[in-house]
């Protein structure tokens, strides 16, 4: 009986001593962490995709809690909804950001009879764009286009980009893409661009882009691919918003200025300008045949006034 009592007493005193030591040590060496970091991390998506530019959601939460002005920090996955929640937690204001999406700037289909680029070489090395592009410029006459080996597919954590076997090109699934930009970083040809999704009209987010990055002179680019931009500048001339510039023999549409009217699509002699909506009717009788996602709108809207603008999308374009 005595042995039991002694044991209890010893253990109790040991436990108490340890508890006191632990208490004082934890007070003395306390590392203060802003409780808001935890709260912010809670509302972030937790995908750790790195699309924001930080190592993961925790690092982003730290940066958000520390920053005085968080308008420069955006979670591309959560978008405006998450950022406004973050702003509420931190009591800071946040700029509304328009949702973005990745677009593949190459329309040089390499497969089948309707191929825009013909294969000139047969590559049988490692299935990686980064490796293939160290060996050669490309397996078609175009040295700028999509290699179709899927480095972008491998890095996408949201299953939003696929190499379409019917065209040999990478294609983005708009519904799944969160615009984290991982694919754009992985692409050795730098043909993936993160652009505004565009104003939604009749369930279609309207955006238009030049689907080519070929910097060769017109004649060379013309030979290399049927869908190449030849830098003729017709689109730049017709654009009423000065959104299009031609540099290094290739046109680029500034997404900040573009109103997605689609006038440039009609002008392009090579159909290198692609949009998510059909081209507006031409003044000339022949209708243009450019369309990408194939969402048919019977009466193509021209210069549409903002019809239904979702709350989060009012700052776009």
């Amino acid at each position, binding site marked *: 009986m005595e042995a039991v009592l002694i044991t209890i007493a010893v253990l109790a005193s040991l436990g108490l001593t340890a508890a006191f030591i632990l208490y004082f040590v934890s007070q003395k060496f306390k590392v203060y962490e802003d409780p808001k970091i935890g709260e912010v991390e809670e509302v972030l998506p937790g995908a750790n995709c790195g699309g924001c530019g930080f190592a993961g959601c925790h690092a982003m939460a730290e940066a958000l809690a520390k920053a005085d002005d968080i308008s420069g920090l955006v979670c591309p996955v959560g978008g405006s909804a998450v950022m406004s929640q973050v702003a509420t937690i931190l009591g800071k204001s946040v700029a509304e950001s328009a949702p973005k999406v990745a677009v593949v700037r190459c329309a040089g289909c390499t497969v089948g009879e309707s191929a825009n680029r013909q294969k*000139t*070489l*047969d590559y*049988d*090395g*490692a299935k*990686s764009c*980064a*490796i293939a592009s*160290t*060996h*050669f*410029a*490309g397996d078609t006459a175009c*040295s700028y286009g999509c290699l179709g080996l899927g480095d972008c597919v491998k890095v996408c954590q949201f299953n939003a980009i696929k190499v379409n076997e019917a065209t040999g090109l990478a294609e983005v699934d708009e519904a799944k893409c969160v615009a984290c930009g991982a694919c754009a970083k992985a692409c050795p040809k730098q043909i993936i661009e993160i652009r505004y999704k565009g104003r939604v009209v009749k369930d279609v987010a309207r955006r238009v882009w030049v689907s080519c990055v070929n910097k060769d002179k017109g004649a060379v680019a013309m030979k290399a691919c049927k869908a190449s931009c030849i830098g003729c500048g017709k689109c730049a001339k017709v654009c009423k918003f000065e959104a299009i510039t031609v540099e290094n023999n290739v046109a680029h549409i500034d997404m900040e200025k573009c109103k997605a009217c689609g006038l440039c699509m009609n002008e392009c002699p090579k159909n290198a300008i692609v949009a998510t909506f059909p081209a507006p009717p031409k003044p000339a009788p022949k209708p243009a045949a450019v369309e990408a996602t194939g969402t048919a709108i019977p009466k193509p809207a021209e210069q549409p006034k903002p019809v239904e603008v979702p709350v989060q999308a009012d700052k776009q374009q």
Partner: protein
Amino acid sequence: MLKTFKIGGIHPEENKLSAGSALKQFQLPADIKEVKIPVAQHIGAPAQPVVAVGDDVKVGQVIAQAGGFVSANIHSPFSGKVKKIEATTGDDGKPAMMITIAIEGDEWVETIDRSTGIKREITLSAEEIVKKIGEMGIVGMGGARFPAQVKLAVKPGQAQALIINGVECEPYLTADHRLMLEKSEEVLIGIKILMKAIGVTEAYIGIENNKKDAIELLTKLSAGYPGIKVQPLKMKYPQGGEKQLIDACIGRQVASGALPISVGAVVQNVGTAFAVYEAVQKNKPLIERVVCVTGKPLQNPSNFWARIGTPVKALIEAAGGMPEDCAKVIGGGPMMGRAFATLDVPIHKGSSGILLMNNQESKRGEIANCIRCAKCVSVCPMGLEPFLLSKVSAKQLWDMAEENHIADCIECGSCSFTCPSNRPLLDYIRRGKSTVMGIMRARAAAAKAAAEAAEAKKN
């Protein structure tokens, strides 16, 4: 007992189809009116063009000057008018700066000694030799194309032995073999010149045992050249690698990341020795070289003396024309060479071979999973772990790749050759290596800049 290097190595099929074909002077067909000369024919900074469009150039005239410390002059291999200086398609299909010359006649620079006699006496001093080699644009002729004068600029007493690479361990290629047989005296004098330049009294010519005629001939002739010893070697690929050859010839091992000079060795190719002979004794810049045009589908595998800038197509034509069942044309040997993306390109200073492969030969096997057999580890001549390096490169774990000495890889391809699962190990490793080397260079540059900034602050 023949010598060889200790770690790893493989035994690919030899296929020296053109070994019996004597060197032939290649005459450019009359219908070729212009040639393209690349300005980047060596490792290091591209040369800077010093001629303008419309200028007349003679054979042997400098058309582009070395663009840095590690760089080499480019001389015109043809006479005529400069037509264009612009970027056109290079070997890999990417744009490469080239000087286009419209050929007119064959007028040489007067200072070049075009006599056929052998000039034995070496009149220049060591410094003059190195300077001359630099002026004449000599680069490593084995394929790596490292500017020769940079390798030869050693401190007095630093070098103890010159090692001449006559191994030609790449299957198919016979350029060095023919050169050793037909220009043996010149090669030996070239070696003497190189020995004088770096101040050594012994030189070893490493030759693999499959070239018995060359070993015999050079052993006989080298009796008249004190200090030069022919070293027959057991056949094993990649014996022509610098570090492997040093190990095989003099039994010294170069540490990871170190240069051959750290063990007192300077390695040069036999082709380089010949080019040095011509540059120093005959004042002739590097404007032509031996190109071995070979391959199973080819009608007449041959060895040509061809001027730099000769179109690859013309050489294939001269060796019997493009065969129908040719699936791949490779610049260099089958192990380390690279497939041409287009044949509309000229040969350059490092073009030791043009190899044609038929469909059956060129096809890679279907890639299967790694079965952890470690064959790649046992054949790696650098003692690396290729399976691991390829994996970490694919996963972009650059730190781990660096820790595992990816920068030591000599890209010999033994790992991919031996892999029973046909894994393209070297493809991945090469990418990892170039990325890691880039990171290492950036780090070194940053450290240097920081040190300079600290120095500037102190003053």
